[in-house]
């Protein structure tokens, strides 16, 4: 996940530091609704959390999970539509609205704050559009500009509120870094309503959102009101940001949008599964953040939620079945092991061929000479063959006999190699002494259907460019080396 921050992010960080300083002076006790917990131990707090007796615990947990669902779903859309930065700008632009919503009746009324924040967010988004369309500035600069301007206005207003007589107990400061513990019954009710509405709208208009996100032009031709869908999505994104504000904080809301969605994106190739996964990850991160912030006195919730989400993303990055680092490494490793086995089989075939396939067993010493490797290495490779039932070892592991499977595989590899050499010299006019290196790689990847086509194109040729016989199906089916070399008519090298 790479998010390109516009240069103004640095400005934004500066504002954050200033805000931190201001808050330090503005706040005496962090103690929110859940009371003084400085004398309780971590274990007691954990116990208190998991018994769910305390309504504050229930609100905090429920609220965090709801916002996780909402942010996960909406975040998925902005990730696949490459609007991650819009989410970032939107979340910062809502802060003045939060302050205004508070000033409306100088109390922390969730509905007033919700309305104020949504309006501020939408104005911010509109401002980005206006700057983009009327100046030559591009979207990234416009986003950075609006984000910083709105955020700094918001910081000033929050600081002012802190100085008001009622401001100290307002909890408005919690909107910066988030405090799930500050959630009340009314907050959670609003969050539940928004989450239900979001899921309903997405569910009902899923196909319209899907086609608009993937291919807006095509969507319009099929009669989808693309603009309406876009603005609906933006409005719901603003809703998700606003309900997450109090618990996550302005600074980190965009991470709650992007992180669970990014993890889900790595894990699946279908949008509906991505939405479900992102919702689950968001919910889990929310719950984890709520729990962690309960353990210590007044720990901010937002960072813990985002850490939870980042842990999920890290796990997806490492362990995802398709795109994960570990699975990719594993696939590469098993491929290179297979190539090595096939090369050993090929060498055994070459040794057998050089002495007209008699006697059947090949000694490790012969192979070591042939491959110019140490006896030790060869023995290791032979045991690897035995482990895959491709060969049996006799004479104290010094002589190797191919099983029918091993013989068939050896024939196939030699056939692939020689067919490809022939194809390159015949069809692609590559000089005969240039084709070996290429065939060394291709022999391991040719599928049977490609081999059929090659054989047909080469008129079922029997000899490679160096005059060696190309093993055919009859040889493979024989299950072991022929008792003697039969050059024409039947057996060795015969084409079908």
């Amino acid at each position, binding site marked *: 996940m790479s998010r390109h921050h516009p240069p103004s992010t640095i400005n934004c960080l500066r504002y954050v530091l200033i805000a931190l300083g201001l808050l330090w002076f503005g706040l005496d006790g962090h103690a929110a609704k859940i009371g003084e917990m400085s004398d309780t131990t971590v274990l007691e707090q954990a116990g208190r959390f998991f018994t769910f007796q305390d309504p504050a615990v229930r609100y905090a947990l429920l609220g965090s999970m709801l916002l996780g669902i909402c942010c996960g779903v909406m975040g998925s859309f902005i990730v*696949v539509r*490459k609007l991650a930065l819009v989410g970032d700008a939107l979340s910062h632009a809502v802060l003045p609205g939060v302050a205004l919503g508070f000033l409306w009746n100088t109390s922390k009324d969730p509905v007033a704050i919700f309305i104020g924040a949504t309006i501020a967010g939408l104005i911010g988004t509109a401002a980005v559009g206006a700057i983009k369309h009327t100046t030559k500035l591009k979207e990234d600069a416009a986003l950075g500009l609006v984000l910083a301007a709105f955020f700094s206005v918001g910081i000033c207003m929050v600081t002012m509120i802190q100085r008001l007589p009622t401001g100290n107990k307002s909890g408005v400061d919690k909107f910066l870094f988030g405090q799930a513990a500050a959630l009340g019954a009314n907050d959670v009710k609003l969050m539940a309503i928004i989450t239900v509405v979001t899921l309903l709208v997405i569910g*009902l*208009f899923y*196909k*319209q959102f*899907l*086609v608009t*996100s*993937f*291919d807006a*032009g*095509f*969507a*319009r*031709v*099929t*009669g*989808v009101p693309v603009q309406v869908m876009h603005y609906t999505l933006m409005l719901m994104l603003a809703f998700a940001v606003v309900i997450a504000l109090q618990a996550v904080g302005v600074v980190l809301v965009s991470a709650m949008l992007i992180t669970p969605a990014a993890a889900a*994106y790595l894990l*699946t*190739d*279908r*949008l509906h*599964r*991505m939405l479900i996964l992102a919702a689950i990850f968001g919910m889990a991160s929310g719950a984890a953040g709520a729990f962690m912030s309960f353990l210590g006195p007044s720990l901010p919730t937002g960072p813990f939620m985002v850490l939870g989400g980042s842990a999920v993303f890290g796990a997806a990055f490492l362990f995802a079945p398709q795109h994960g680092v570990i699975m990719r490494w594993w696939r590469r490793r098993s491929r290179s092991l297979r190539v090595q086995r096939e090369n050993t089989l090929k060498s055994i075939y070459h040794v057998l061929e050089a002495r007209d396939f008699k006697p059947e067993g090949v000694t490790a010493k012969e192979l070591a000479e042939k491959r110019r490797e140490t006896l030790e290495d060869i023995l290791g490779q032979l045991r690897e063959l035995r482990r895959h039932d491709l060969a049996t070892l006799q004479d104290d592991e010094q002589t190797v006999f191919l099983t029918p499977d091993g013989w068939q595989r050896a024939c196939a590899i030699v056939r692939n190699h020689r067919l490809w050499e022939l194809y390159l010299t015949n069809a692609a006019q590559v000089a005969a002494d240039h084709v070996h290196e290429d065939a060394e790689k291709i022999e391991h990847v040719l599928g049977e259907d490609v081999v059929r086509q090659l054989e047909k194109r080469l008129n079922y040729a029997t000899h490679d460019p160096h005059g060696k016989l190309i093993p055919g199906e009859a040889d493979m089916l024989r299950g072991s080396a022929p008792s003697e070399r039969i050059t024409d008519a039947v057996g060795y090298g015969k084409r079908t």
Partner: protein
Amino acid sequence: MSANISTTTSGEAAPLEIHDLTVAYQKKPVLWGVDVTVPKGNLVGIVGPNGAGKSTLIKAAMGLLPVSSGWVKVFGTPLKENFRRVGYVPQRESVDWDFPVNVMDLVLMGRYGHLGVFQRPTKRDREIAKECLDKVKMLPYANRQIANLSGGQQQRVFLARALAQEADLYFMDEPFAGVDAATEAAIIELLHELKSKGKTLLVVHHDLPTARNYFDMLLLLNMRVVAFGPTEEVFTYELLQKTYGGRLTILSEVAEAVRTKT
């Protein structure tokens, strides 16, 4: 060939009628007063130099771009009332191929126009999507993530989606761009098949030499319509020179194309 370019035989309005269409980007016109009436059952190639407004023309015709003046009618009515009869193959680069959908999901999008607002694709829609995938020989890839397709395969899937629209008028934006020879042959065969079923197709095309063989009618475009008519009448040295005017490298290509005509 001009015999089958008879206009409305059944009394139905022409599939596409563009009247005095002007399109401007930030007040700078890119298309001037385009007047075109495309008769039914024709495979029309839109040909012109880079920046001639080929893509702009079909996008404006489908209402994807704001127009400065003029109007477009599809089967005698504005497109909005008739969008189910219009199919679209956008440029392949216009979408993000890492988007989390598989081939089947993408082709099913072609059915959305036929579904109610809240309706999900039905079993029958899936059947149709499968048939369309089969027509472009992509059925074995139905469950493949679209990121794992080659350029030619992506184009085939886009075509299958357009087929699933079961439209009567098709707009295709450079369907031959960056595809392998086998796909190009398969696409042109499919276009002819659609034409023989009475469909009307407008295809933006880049390659002048093949344009002559592929299309019944050509629309020579360079910010305005230079010529529109049956290929053998329009594909002349004079008209092509007028279309590509002044561009020497193109001119030699034109000369070559005309020379090999006989």
